[in-house]
């Protein structure tokens, strides 16, 4: 039963590596079984002919349509156009929202005055502003961008307010006692202190940005962008095109979540010490 400490550590390391490899495999399995079940059910339902293919095309049909859209049509260009627009609008909205949130959040008067208006605006679906945006900003894409940015801006500002109220008071007191004030304080203390809470806000903002952008693309850009394709698919009653576009959005959404937000969150949580050292 007695093993030297060296052996023990070596065995431990091996066991850990093995456990980790198993965990990655298991993790993939754990995370995808539900998708597999859904796809299987979908396939079964359509293969058995239980529903009108007009109402629910088979997975194969949708994949085929997707293939055609990508290989023969310019769906990839649409996707790129949409994602670029999305990132740009989202980034503008994030910066504007966080700046406004921090600047007005440090004064009770400003916050009391501005926050209810933003909270109220948040209830108004961003598309309602689309006609105004086109009139005021013109049609050359800036309306779409403005709508996307505006859609992101509101939840970001609200998330910033929320986050500012969650800064531990002793951190603020420590900062003040050390002589921080004004812009120095906002830049070096308040902003970094709210970052972990903002990450959740970023995701929310992304989700609102998608909604605003899709709504705007459907109305504004005719055929350019995923929204345009979605709308044209609807117009001509091609449900497989609609589902193919949904699938693309879904994949982009999951990819963004996994490749960007989850990593960002993990990095921030680590850096801000929100998880134990290990």
């Amino acid at each position, binding site marked *: 039963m007695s093993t030297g400490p060296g052996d023990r550590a070596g065995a431990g390391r091996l066991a850990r590596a093995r456990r980790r490899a198993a965990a990655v495999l298991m993790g993939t399995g754990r995370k995808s079984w539900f998708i597999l079940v859904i796809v299987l059910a979908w396939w079964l339902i359509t293969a058995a002919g239980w529903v009108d293919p007009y109402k629910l095309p088979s997975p194969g049909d949708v994949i085929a349509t997707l293939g055609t859209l990508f290989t023969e049509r310019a769906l990839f260009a649409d996707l790129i156009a949409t994602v670029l627009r999305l990132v740009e609008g989202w980034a503008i909205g994030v910066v504007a929202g966080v700046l406004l949130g921090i600047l007005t959040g440090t004064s009770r008067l400003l916050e009391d005055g501005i926050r209810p208006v933003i909270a109220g605006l948040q209830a108004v679906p961003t598309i309602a502003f689309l006609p105004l945006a086109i009139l005021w900003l013109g049609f050359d894409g800036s309306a779409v961008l403005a709508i996307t940015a505006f859609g992101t801006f509101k939840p970001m500002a609200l998330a910033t307010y929320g986050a500012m109220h969650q800064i531990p008071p002793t951190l603020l007191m*420590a900062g*003040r006692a050390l002589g921080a004030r004004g812009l120095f304080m906002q830049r070096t203390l308040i902003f970094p202190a709210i970052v972990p809470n903002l990450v959740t806000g970023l995701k929310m903002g992304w989700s609102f940005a998608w909604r605003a952008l899709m709504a705007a693309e459907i109305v504004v850009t005719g055929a350019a962008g995923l929204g345009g394709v979605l709308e044209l698919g609807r117009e001509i009653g091609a449900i497989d095109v609609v589902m193919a576009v949904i699938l693309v959005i879904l994949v982009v959404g999951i990819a963004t979540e996994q490749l960007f937000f989850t990593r960002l969150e993990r990095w921030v949580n680590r850096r801000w010490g929100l998880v134990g050292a290990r």
Partner: protein
Amino acid sequence: MEQPAVRVSGACKTYERSDHAALLPTSFDVARGEFVSLVGPSGCGKSTLLGMIAGLLIPDAGSIEALGVPVTGPGDGRAIVFQDAALFPWLTVFHNVEYGLRAHGVPKAERRERVEDALRLVHLDDVADRHPYELSGGMRQRASIARALVMRPEILLMDEPFSALDAQTRTILTDELQRIWLETRPAVVFVTHNLIEAAFLSDTVHLLSSGPGRIVKTYEVDIPRPRDEADPALLGLRHDMLDRLRAEVDDAVLRRAQAAEVTAL
């Protein structure tokens, strides 16, 4: 007479939206280089008092002077250490300690030197690059103390700096604090619940009553330093203070029970 480091004259405080005072008018002096402890039941206004000396809270009436100048806000010469260390989690130990110097516009080279000195003083020089989450509770408090000391305060305010630590770490850090204090000799106002700690470290211990706080008794500790925690004189002093406090609490429990009934109506 030499000017005191801190002079509290009749300072009192009632918080907004509260209907009873957090601290009744209180007066005491802290001489330069003196170590003063404030002891009292929970909620008796110790943190409030310390916050006022730090300039983080404004007294409703009375005045507070630090180094002969009326306190109107946080300012030079005073530094504070909190119970939860309150380190900035996104900064390394080095940058945490450097923060106050940056806020004061100290040039980079001098900052580096002073931070390194402070970290050596609290034995943290080899973890300067770590983030707070990578430190034990005791190391965090050392870092917090270094962050205060790097400002070269003449007045060091400490609000239960060790109460979140386990008994053993606490004992070690109390020893360390005695050493650091003997080396740097700032005036200290030290808040604690731990009577042995108070007796061990202080020149003077003020006992506060509960409810709306006020000083009910002051003990002078005339034991030569460095002291030993097991010194029977300290244990005796602790016993005296405990008896006095227990009487205070019984009183307070009664009063608080009555207040609670009013609240519950």
